[in-house]
């Protein structure tokens, strides 16, 4: 694979707000790449810079090695799927799809053939004569995809394309987008705040916050090896521990954490004794049982009390109090109605995890720790919301 789109130190400010703050990224040919982050993190501004709707204050955008930073949107070989689809209301489905080719003054034959192929791809041959207000939301989404793809762009930019659809339809369109990507082989750059969408579609994900890219990697890398507390908390659920290295043991180390004696952890970052450490352990990596697990050096096991139970069917979420800490534990069931004897509220239990399942973070902040979902401990105990800024215009 070779670099197709390259962003070099791109920055853009609106007034005093740094919407994009020095972003460098490389997209490979044919890749499905996602920009994932909360609203206001700058992902949409970055997309608009690539599309040509915004000019960056600094940095360069290269496409196929060519600098396109100064090109207007109509002269860039990229096309956008807008969140609201932005279909032309006065044109039929067919004319909407043909728009780009007509503007490019292609022959009538070429246009008809290309539009027919697109209508077949999106399975909408029977709706070609309809106006956008006569088709459903899912159909509009497909027409928007076809209208962009018919121009055979180098990169297809998708700006939260599923946000306007209801949940069930979103799942379906998600699969369809994946199929379309497989079929056309065009590079997709997908902007979303929904980690589920990003995880299920992407070859690679860039996690953004406050105008910066915090981590880039495959969904598994992002989930299993988060570099910072923000990435760990924004993608999935997790438990944070704060402590220091008490001793080294080969590739492993022993950590001193308040309330947890002698936590063993894989020391992939070669952190020396007495250094502070932040640990993230995913709830599904924690085991919950009534009996203590067999003592092994690789297993960390502690006794606690079940604080809260939420049965979700596919799994149960437990919150277990271990000496002042509240740990989230996810557990799947088998033979639930027969002899599993599910653990209930108030029971004394054993929590354990493997030394390889704890992951040391490079950066930690208290604000990020508040992002993880915790049930309130008393009525009215609502966590402070992070300032919910809209994405820059």
């Amino acid at each position, binding site marked *: 694979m070779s670099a197709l789109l390259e962003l070099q130190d791109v920055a853009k400010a609106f007034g005093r707000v740094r919407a994009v703050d020095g972003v460098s990224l490389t997209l490979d040919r044919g890749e499905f790449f996602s920009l994932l982050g909360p609203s206001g993190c700058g992902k949409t501004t970055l997309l608009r810079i690539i599309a040509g709707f915004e000019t960056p204050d600094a940095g360069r955008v290269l496409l196929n090695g060519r600098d396109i930073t100064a090109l207007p949107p*109509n002269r860039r070989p990229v096309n956008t799927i807008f969140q*609201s689809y932005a*279909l032309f*209301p006065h044109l039929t489905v067919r004319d909407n799809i043909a728009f780009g080719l007509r503007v490019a003054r292609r022959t009538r034959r070429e246009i008809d053939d290309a539009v027919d192929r697109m209508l077949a791809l999106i399975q909408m041959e029977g709706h070609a004569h309809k106006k956008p207000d*006569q*088709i*459903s*939301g*899912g159909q509009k989404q497909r027409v928007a995809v076809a209208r962009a793809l018919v121009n055979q762009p180098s990169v297809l930019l998708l700006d939260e394309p599923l946000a306007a659809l209801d949940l069930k339809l979103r799942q*379906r369109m998600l699969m369809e987008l994946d199929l379309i990507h497989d079929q056309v082989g065009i590079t997709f750059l997908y902007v979303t705040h929904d980690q589920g969408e990003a995880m299920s579609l992407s070859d690679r994900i860039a996690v953004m916050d406050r105008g910066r890219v915090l981590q880039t990697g495959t969904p598994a890398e992002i989930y299993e090896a988060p570099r910072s507390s923000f990435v760990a908390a924004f993608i999935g659920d997790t438990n944070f521990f704060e402590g220091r290295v008490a001793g080294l043991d080969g590739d492993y180390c022993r950590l001193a954490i308040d309330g947890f004696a002698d936590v063993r952890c894989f020391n992939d970052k070669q952190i020396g004794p007495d250094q502070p450490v932040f640990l993230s352990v995913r709830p599904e990596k924690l085991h919950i049982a009534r009996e203590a697990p067999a003592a092994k050096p690789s297993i960390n096991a502690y006794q606690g009390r079940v604080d809260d139970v939420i049965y979700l069917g596919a799994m149960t979420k437990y919150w277990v109090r271990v000496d002042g800490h509240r740990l989230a534990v996810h557990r799947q069931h088998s033979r639930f109605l027969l002899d599993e004897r599910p653990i209930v509220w108030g029971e004394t239990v054993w929590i354990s995890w493997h030394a390889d399942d704890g992951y040391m973070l490079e950066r930690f902040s208290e604000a990020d720790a508040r992002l993880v979902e915790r049930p309130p401990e008393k009525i009215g105990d609502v966590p402070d919301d992070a300032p919910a800024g809209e994405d820059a215009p």
Partner: protein
Amino acid sequence: MSRHLRDRLPEWLVTLPPMGWLAVLFLLPTVLIFAISLRPADPFGGIGAGWTLDHVRALAAPHYVIIAARTVLFSLLTTAICLFLALPTGYYIARAPGRWRQTLLLLVVVPFWTSFLIRIFAWKVLLHPDGLFKQALACLRLVSADAALLYHPPAVLLVMVYTCLPFAILPVYAAAEKFDFQLLEAARDLGAGRFQAFLRVFVPGIRRGVLTAVLVVLIPALGTYVIPDLVGGPTSEMIGNKIAQRVFVDRNLPHAGALAALLTLGVLLPMAAVLVLQARGRRRAPTDEEGL
């Protein structure tokens, strides 16, 4: 049946006053004009007894054909120039930031604070051989020093455009304000230049506003008579002037009625066309359950 009537009674009561107003003050006079045009004239300026087609036939006279053609030409030109100016103006006002938008709209409406007649007299002063406008153009060598601006067709057109322009800008702005400007970004994204996006997406997008602007400019323009009367000369007479002349100078009401009937028909035709265009029905959008 009676129950049906009783249920609709409030509706009728609400509709009756405006319908009555239109019937008495619009429909009845129009019918009267059509009727009068078919009566003979009486030598004392009244309406004679019996019926005749003389006045209708007289409309085919060559000088009327010229005047009718000029009326249509001036009105179409006025409409075209007004639209040409109103489209970009409406676009920019709609895209201007909030507080600017109010100021700009106010500037469009400000001329209405002054009487229509006074504004036309003002143009007489401006276009006068010694007037400011004329002198300025002569200074810039755009016209020769002895050129006559006043009392010629271009002066009539200029003042017609001047008086009609706000009526074109306002409906265009009203439509542009509701326009989804992201559509222009979508057009640019798909390869259209600025001008192409404007023509292919913005103008069709505000179609209803454009049609309204055409109506409210074209119809009064066809009936114009004060403007050619004050700033025009013998080569800029329009049907409105002829009607006034027949009424006030010749005191031939049936003849004036025939001219007025011709004008009314000339106005109704474009209006009917626009109404048909605007009333193009829209069908219901399917829901996603049906759509997939």
